[in-house]
């Protein structure tokens, strides 16, 4: 485990990207790292693409990661994975949630949403490791689609060879009391699964 890492989280407005990245930032801070986190909100609620950068280090200057310098890229949506892929460093790890959120431009216009096979083949070329996780389906099976991010964070904690406690402490503090147990379950499904493709 290292206290120096760059993270990128990407999704679509409404997917909880900002909460998930708050958790990643808090975990770093609790472990004693200097932490910075950056996102842009404002119009994100209206279905726009959302990205959030989190950086842990001894001292962190820029709140933004540089392209090609991200160690862990958590993509909550297939198209958004492809859109921000160049931020991942060569050899970096992608945690990819198998979910499509169709932009309206593909409905009234001629834009084409890339097929899953194409996304997967492209990201495999660019990443050191790809973990393909059907987080939404897992979350729905657990009883609430909103815990999909805890599945992804569980998988991230395992990739970083960190203890579950370091993460669960923060997740418990950040999610509503009545959803704590479900988030814990989701976290462990993510943490214990073998998602490598």
């Amino acid at each position: 485990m290292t206290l120096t890492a760059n993270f990128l989280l990407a999704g679509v407005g409404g997917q909880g990207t900002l909460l998930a990245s708050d958790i990643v930032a808090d975990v770093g801070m609790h472990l004693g790292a200097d932490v910075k986190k950056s996102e842009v909100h404002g119009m994100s609620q209206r279905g726009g693409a959302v990205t959030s950068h989190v950086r842990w280090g001894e001292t962190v200057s820029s709140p933004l990661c540089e392209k090609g310098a991200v160690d862990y890229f958590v993509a909550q949506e297939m198209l958004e994975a492809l859109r921000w892929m160049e931020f991942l460093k060569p050899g970096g790890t992608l945690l990819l949630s198998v979910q499509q959120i169709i932009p309206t431009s593909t409905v009234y216009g001629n834009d084409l949403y890339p097929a899953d096979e194409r996304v997967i083949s492209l990201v495999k070329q660019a990443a050191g490791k790809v973990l393909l996780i059907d987080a939404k389906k897992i979350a729905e099976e657990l009883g609430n689609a909103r815990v999909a991010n805890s599945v992804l964070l569980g998988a991230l904690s395992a990739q970083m060879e960190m203890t579950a406690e370091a993460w669960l402490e923060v997740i418990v503090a950040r999610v509503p009391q009545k959803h704590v147990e479900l988030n814990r379950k989701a976290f462990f499904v993510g943490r214990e699964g073998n998602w490598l493709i």
Partner: protein
Amino acid sequence: MNKKLLSGNEALARGAWEAGVEVAAAYPGTPSTEILENVARYKEIYSEWSTNEKVALDVAIGAAYSGKRSMATMKHVGLNVASESLFYASYTGINAGLVIVTADDPGLHSSQNEQDNRHYAKFAKVPMLEPSDSQEAKEMVGACFELSEKFDTPVLLRTTTRTSHAKSIVDLGERKVSPKRAYEKNPPKYVMIPGYAKRRHPIVEERLIKLAEYAETCSFNKMEMGDTSLGIVATGPSYQYAKEVFPNASFLKLGMVWPLPKKLIADFASKVKRLIVIEELDPFFEENIRIMGIPAEGKNIFPLVDEFSPEVVRKSAHAAGLVDAPPIERAFDKGVLPMRPPVLCAGCGHRDVFWVLRKLKVTVNSDIGCYALGVMPPLTATDTIGAMGASIGVAAGMRRGGLDGSNVAVIGDSTFFHAGMPALANAIYNQTPITTIVVDNRTTGMTGHQGNPASGMTLHRDLHAEVDIAQVVRGMGIEEVVTVESRDLDEFESVVKKAIKSNKPAVVIAKTPCVFVTSHPRETYKIVEEDCNGCTMCFRIGCPAISKSEVMDEQHNRPKAVIDPVACVGCGLCYDVCARQAILEGALKQEASLVSHVS
């Protein structure tokens, strides 16, 4: 450990509380909105959403005159609105401290321009500080108040979107309230008639000289000496990016943006071989340093437009031969990806309005708010958008400029109170026969659903008396004011047509309740698959809940439509536009589920 991860805006609010601020006012605007939302959580501070930024600043100025530390916060273009008050306050000075936060938006994440508000400090002859992370943001609020009271001046604190919204670790402190400074009547100081103002101007100029002396020793202006072959002058987030790209260079970090410390800059310049300025947007430091007679580079290397990032700085630095390593390019052919621009929400009442206006083929002079999205495909109904409240004046001007009578102004409820009323009064006064459609969604939507005079909901979510737009408009002299549910497309269309035809100044109030405020009466709608022939009519409303089905219409070889049951909130516009009755109406909801979401 009293440390917390705070955004720049949260840190500014915390800083205000610790500095003993007692009055704070603002109009919401990205990226500044969360400052006041966080200030509102401190019970010791009176805080309010004002109707616009100028009013907010006047409220803060009045509170400072009366003896309490006060703050006004706004986005960069808000300071344009408030600038007239900034300029008189520069002359009058203050009594208790006054700090004005301007949150600039390089990169136009949510704005109509990317103006650099550092110019306002020079223009209004007041000091300005700029933090580069949340800790500094918090500390600078306190420092700004000390400066304000020491030099009898309003103080500007500039952030940018990146600093306002990035989070970093902050040491929390305690609140300290200074003793109240009693207000004493002093017309030559507080009454800016020409005779008195003329006497204040030299005081302002002397103050600026003293502030420049102060800047020489201001602790936020720091020299960090490293390799002296390159000396970098920077502030704000640019400083952070530059530290990443040039870890070994010498730095002069200017936390005090105006007035500039001439001796400190000259001293730094003399210690380094080459002096470059890394600053977002305008060459503000660069030009002012050159005026001092010190050779500085900057915009010959770094871009004049758009937000910086570590790779923007690295790319420019590499092209100029300042660093060896280029940005990492990860080339792989992903083709052209569909964009994901912000869209009107599923069920948004504004969609009905623009659907009808597009059908009527009228020229639409629109305004700032969620309804600005009416310009996006597929609705593409809008002709002009400029600034808060501009819709009505521009519509009148286009009419006077020779456009036929079919242009309409579209303005939101909050924007109407912000800057729409004077323009409407003007149209009535001059009898310019334009139709104004007030799209009243009962909230200030784009900035995150704040209240406004029309909804009567305050910053603290208390419900006060609603200022009735229809009555206001009638009082202004509009004889026929029609309030209509735009969800009833036919009725709305006929009302708008009639208003245009009246050839008089006319106002239509379209009730377009925001889905975050009020529920639609029906449950989710559904495509009847066997009846849909993929005609694409419902695709043209641009609803994010509707997409192309995997099921094809075999006769026409095109995809049928499908409605996402999670995203659909039951507005029924798709049902109204479907020519084949291939959409099943949602069931009426139980009354209990219809209550307003906002209390």
